[in-house]
């Protein structure tokens, strides 16, 4: 009877040590719902208890219902016949159970049937669902669509669509990508037009749409004829009715339970969400950022599952007369994996908290303004978390999804030849992990999104504050190492900036973002090491490893390895 919440000491540690009081107060708007809904908390201690209770439920579902179905779901995959998409049996069962447990309106307000949970708690739930079955996350994690409608649609639209999500009656899809508009969504070409009566309709083709066969579709379309960039795009919502034809589903390397559809819209009736022309610039960016956090949690869950598989295999497998876990090379891999897991989890939940604060402060500011009250402090705080979330979201996705590939790789390595066989879960995990650093923006694009905050040294004041504190013993040594990393980062940044070569800077961005992530994560671990002795080991391995990696990043920059990009045409036969 594994419960993926209670059996995971680190996620429990994260929840217990996380200060959610302000977020909870913001999201509950001073606990006003307590009078209206029997399941709304009356204060923070009750709210925090609710978070734990909800995580126990999803942990139970993940461990006992979803995980046992994952191998079958992978084997069976989603079906496509006569234009109709059907989920694998295990996916259907899992979705039914998630709905029964009230999990499909996780973050939506209670008036729409939701649980009104913070994004941070939702992110924890995504981690657990993904540990059980990464492909199910692509359906479970699409709750971001409801969240986007909640943020930007009008009240009528919210009343129409949101209760359907909460009740588990409808699944959604983010319909963005087209054959010629993948990473570059500015090139989206699907046409939105108004008929004589002024009703909006959609025409065109979309590709690689996760759960495109879903009931409610959020579609990015060109509403301004004659435009060619992102400023001509608007966001629409429509039903996946008969006018939306699923042309095919993709045959993929992994996440087989999640149908990836090619869609054809034939004069599909739709409604405009929010304002025209803000489709990509505002709404899709928000939707994508939510999805990036979700995919980070998905990568986290896959990593946890791969680690568990490696650990139990290493304990059970005997070679040379002993369990292979006693072999230093294997132990070292496991320590590295565990360190990555725990440090990534710290980064993930720091990111989720920043996202919560950014979004919930917007709501608070709106309420204060409506009541004619000043909101100066809130606005300053919102601005701060807006910047932090804009840095952490892509950084976290970059780091966690690349790690998921490394951890599944190492887990398979620990399994030896056995891990290459279909009978073992790690084979599936390695395939499932591979999409996480591609979709919702490749790692390369995450680096582009994060580099601004890194170049502007967004955490400068926070690092100064950390450095000015008094530390003792091992923690003081570790902080000294972080100071060294910071000084290397500063040197590298100056070097790149002084060089004033855009191509070089683009190539070096990855190193700079990595270096900055060592600092942010390193200090998160310093905080944790102050709370639990065991965490000192994690902080130590992480920070020493980061120092070594940082020196490598630094060498790559100072040796000007990337200068040969100017000879690219000769080297790679352009």
């Amino acid at each position, binding site marked *: *009877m594994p419960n993926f919440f209670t059996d995971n000491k680190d996620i429990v540690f994260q929840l217990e040590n996380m200060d959610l009081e302000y977020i909870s107060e913001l999201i509950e708007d001073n606990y006003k719902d307590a009078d209206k809904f*029997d*399941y*709304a*908390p009356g204060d923070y201690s009750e709210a925090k*208890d*609710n978070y734990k*209770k*909800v995580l126990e*439920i999803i942990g*139970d*579902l993940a461990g006992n*219902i979803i995980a046992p179905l994952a191998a079958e779901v992978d084997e069976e995959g989603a079906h496509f016949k006569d234009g109709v998409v059907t989920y694998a049996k295990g996916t259907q069962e899992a979705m039914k*159970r998630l709905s*029964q*447990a*009230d*999990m499909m309106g996780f973050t939506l307000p209670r008036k729409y049937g939701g*649980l009104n949970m913070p994004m941070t708690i939702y992110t924890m739930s995504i981690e657990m669902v993904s540990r059980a079955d990464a492909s199910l996350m692509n359906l479970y994690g699409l709750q971001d669509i409801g969240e986007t409608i909640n943020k930007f649609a009008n009240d009528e639209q919210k009343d129409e669509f949101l209760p359907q999500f909460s009740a588990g009656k409808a699944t959604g899809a983010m319909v963005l990508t087209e054959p010629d508009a993948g990473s570059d969504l500015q090139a989206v070409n699907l046409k939105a037009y108004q008929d004589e009566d002024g009703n909006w309709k959609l025409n065109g083709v979309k590709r690689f749409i996760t759960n495109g066969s879903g009931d409610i579709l959020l579609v990015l379309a060109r509403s301004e004829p004659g435009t060619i960039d992102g400023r001509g795009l608007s966001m629409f919502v429509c039903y996946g009715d008969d006018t939306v034809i699923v042309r095919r589903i993709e045959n993929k390397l992994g996440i087989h339970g999640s149908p990836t559809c090619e869609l054809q819209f034939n004069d599909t009736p739709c409604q405009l969400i929010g304002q025209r022309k803000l489709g990509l610039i505002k709404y899709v960016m928000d939707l994508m950022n939510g999805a990036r956090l979700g995919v980070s949690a998905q990568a986290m869950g896959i990593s946890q599952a791969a680690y568990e598989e490696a650990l139990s295999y290493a304990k059970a497998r005997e070679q040379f007369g002993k369990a292979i876990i006693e072999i230093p090379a294997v132990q070292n891999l496991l320590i590295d994996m565990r360190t990555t897991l725990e440090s990534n989890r710290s980064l993930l939940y720091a990111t989720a908290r920043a996202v919560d604060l950014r979004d919930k402060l917007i709501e608070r500011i709106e309420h204060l303004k409506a009541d004619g009250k000043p909101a100066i402090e809130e606005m300053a705080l919102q601005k701060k978390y807006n910047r932090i979330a804009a840095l952490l979201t892509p950084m976290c996705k970059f780091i966690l999804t690349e790690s998921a590939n490394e951890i599944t790789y190492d887990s398979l390595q620990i399994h030896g030849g056995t891990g290459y066989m279909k009978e073992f879960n790690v084979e599936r995990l390695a395939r499932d992990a591979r999409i996480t650093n591609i979709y919702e923006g490749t790692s390369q694009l995450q680096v582009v999104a994060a580099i601004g905050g890194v170049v502007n040294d967004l955490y400068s004041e926070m690092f100064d504050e950390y450095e000015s504190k008094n530390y003792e013993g091992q923690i003081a040594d570790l902080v000294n190492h972080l100071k060294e990393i910071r000084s290397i980062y500063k040197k590298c940044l100056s070097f790149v900036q002084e060089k004033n070569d855009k191509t070089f800077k683009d190539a070096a961005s990855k190193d700079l973002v990595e270096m900055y992530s060592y600092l942010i994560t390193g200090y998160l671990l310093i905080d944790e090491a102050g709370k639990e002795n065991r965490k000192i080991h994690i902080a130590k391995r992480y920070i020493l490893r980061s120092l070594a990696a940082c020196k490598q990043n630094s060498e790559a920059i100072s040796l000007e390895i990337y200068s040969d990009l100017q000879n690219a045409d000769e080297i790679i036969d352009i």
Partner: protein
Amino acid sequence: MTYNSIVLVKQVPDTANISGDVMKPDGTVNRAKLPAIFNPEDKVALELALQVKDQYGGKVTAVTMGPPKAAELLKECLYMGADDVILVTDRQFAGADTLATSYVLSKVIDKIGNYDMIFAGRQAIDGDTAQVGPQTAEKLKLPQITYTEKILELNDDSIKVQRLIDGGCEVLVSKLPVLLTVVKEASVPRPFRAKRVMAYKNFIPQQLTTEDLDVDLERCGLPGSPTKVHKIESVVLSAGDHVSIEPTKEGLGLLIDTLMNDHIFG
């Protein structure tokens, strides 16, 4: 037509997850080390009752007899969707065997009244007697269908049920009200509903004691329990050869002779 159900549930030690320190050095069980869980087949019984409610409407009332901490079990019933829960608890009910338990439960059911179906798990994983359901039906003078795996039809005054038997199934029709004992194959219990968990986590269930019930104290608890445990021993049964016996008079005679020779009969 709506149907009201009463579900008999029991909190039991989690015999499937026994850790090393459960057994005390003197060979007795350290109950504090045994986590208490929802008896698995009772949970399936509740699931069937909730399915009837989902389909036809009506009310589901869960009842348990046990110590005050069994209130936790009743909260779990609420988390799954039960409308009402009753905790039957009194020191004078302690030490009850199946006879005394079913006596008290029948009195509780009489008090609740207005029911169409009573659901219970086939058996609990601690005592494994499978007697409480049938004995309760007998005391209430109700028809009973044991080993229920599927409700096939529900009509105004009757029910058609598929019951699990060795090598197949049997379909029975009964008048309502009826008592059904349910096997684990019948369904997978639904998860707890998050909203209900948050709403009911501090709920205190209604309690019934000897004072609330029209019971003869001589028939309750230890005084009302003729079963005396003489000795407990662990017997490991292993299957030997498979013997086929013809369904004829001679075959049956041979079977009875064999069983008598083995001291299983007689």
